């Protein structure tokens, strides 16, 4: 086992097959992520996004079973030699369904659940809890029951619960799939803030590519278990093959690329507005 060039997460030729299935869900993935990166994973359903996230937080193969080859290294240590609980100390997980990941009845208990499991001294819990809540902007919800929260608030609580365990990486599996546009924006703004202010490493799978375009530093496109594209969102959305990969482009990008294939496409709404101005000016002048 080699400790390789200071990458926090490294996948070397990692392939994985779920039990009772014929095909590999992940095929020879090679990926190296440094501390402090904000990476988005996109791809059509069944591309292996969730499986990739699960192989980083140890649910694959520990919980799911199945067979794998290659290796996943966390801080240079092979993930399959650690238990899920052990991995959970450094990798915080947020799942897609806000309902299914809220374990406890009230906000306070939900936040301390992980800390209690890891034997954090009670005196320290209070402080960590406050910090985690403040990081996601829901400090005012401490006394509430979890059932009374909105979807966006629940997802932020799930993020806070993960943060309270002081992870090095936060992995999120389609955290906005059950949320409305406002709630989705809410979640990504929090992620961005964590990334900028605390240097948190963030890995997120997402269907809404306009969110990824605006917030991520790096974008990885998966298809049928393979990594087909990787780069900055701009590089990826400008790639000639992107239309064949079953990924929805941000609307502004798609529009611009369809009508002005030669021009450099915008990837955010603001850029789109600028793009339209330029187009109009060109015609007007």
């Amino acid at each position, binding site marked *: 086992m080699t400790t390789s060039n200071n990458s926090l997460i490294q996948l070397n030729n990692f392939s994985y097959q779920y039990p009772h299935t014929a095909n590999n869900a992940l095929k020879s993935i090679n990926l190296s992520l440094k501390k402090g990166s904000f990476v988005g994973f996109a791809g059509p359903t069944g591309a292996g996004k969730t499986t990739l996230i699960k192989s980083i*937080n*140890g*649910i694959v193969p*520990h*919980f799911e079973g199945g067979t794998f080859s290659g290796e996943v290294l966390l801080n240079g240590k092979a993930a399959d030699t650690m*238990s*899920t*609980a*052990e*991995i*959970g*100390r450094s*990798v*915080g*997980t947020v*799942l897609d*369904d806000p*309902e*299914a*990941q809220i*374990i*406890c*009845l*009230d906000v*306070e*208990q939900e936040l*301390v*659940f*992980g*800390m*209690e*499991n*890891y*034997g*954090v*001294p*009670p005196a320290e*819990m209070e402080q960590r809890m406050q910090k985690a809540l403040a990081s996601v902007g829901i400090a005012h919800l401490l006394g509430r*029951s979890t*059932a009374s929260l909105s979807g966006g608030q629940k997802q932020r609580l799930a993020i806070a*619960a*993960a943060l309270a*365990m002081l992870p090095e990486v936060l992995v999120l599996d389609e955290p906005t799939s059950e949320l409305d546009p406002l709630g989705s924006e809410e979640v990504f703004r929090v992620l961005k803030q964590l990334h900028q202010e605390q240097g948190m490493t963030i890995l997120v799978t997402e269907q809404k590519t306009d969110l990824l375009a605006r917030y991520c530093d790096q974008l990885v496109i998966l298809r049928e278990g393979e990594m087909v594209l990787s780069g900055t969102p701009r590089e990826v959305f400008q790639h000639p093959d992107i239309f064949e990969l079953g990924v929805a482009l941000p609307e502004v990008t798609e529009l611009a690329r369809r009508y002005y294939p030669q021009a450099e496409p915008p990837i955010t709404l603001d850029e789109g507005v600028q793009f339209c101005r330029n187009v109009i000016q060109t015609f007007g002048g």
Partner: protein
Amino acid sequence: MARVIEYIYRDSIIHQLNPLSKLAWALGVMVLALTFNDPYYLLALLISVGLVGLTGRVMKDLSGVMKGLSIFALILVLLQVVFYHGAYREAVTLGIAMGLRMMTVVLSFLVFLSTTQYKDIILVLTEKMKLPYDYVFMFMTSLRFVPTFLNEAIQVGYAQQVRGCPIDSGNPWRKMKAYIAVALPLVLISLKKAERLAIAMETRGYGSNNRTYYKEPIISTLDYFVIFLVVVLIIGAIILRCKGLGVLH
């Protein structure tokens, strides 16, 4: 029924009591209810439980359940009257005693559950009574998911009804058969939910050693007093019973 066993956020002496003393009280009430079969004794016991509920300010929330329970108690009386071999009077008395006993025991546990937070119950059962954490957590979590489960059942019921599945019509036998269409998806959904919950728990360190607890409920003088009182009452009840009081022959 969905709200029956949920913790009710109120501020009262009963809420502040240590879960251990409340549990002792509920168990004590059960012992007392089983010791006697004189309706007057049982009625007194039921009233005392009701007073505790009132002190805990949860009786209003439990009144719906109490109505349901009294109907059930009435059925118990009727059953006794129909099937008891003996004098009519005796049957009625016995039926009333059974009904009261059932109501008392159920109400005392409802008061206990609605004034005590799950986390505190878990804590007391594992730390003080030394039951294994896994089992206690499993049990308490299953209780916590009852409302979710009932909600899910209603949803599935609607989904099947809009597809023309006759859930709310026909004779009981047909109804029961129609409910298979609800039960099967419900089981599948629950299994899926359980798996996701398990994943959420695993990724947050469930099952690693050396647990700590954030807040341990304190045992106050009042708690010692309550526990002492329960013990005295139980002993007193047994003495009375041995002397033949509170028992009908």
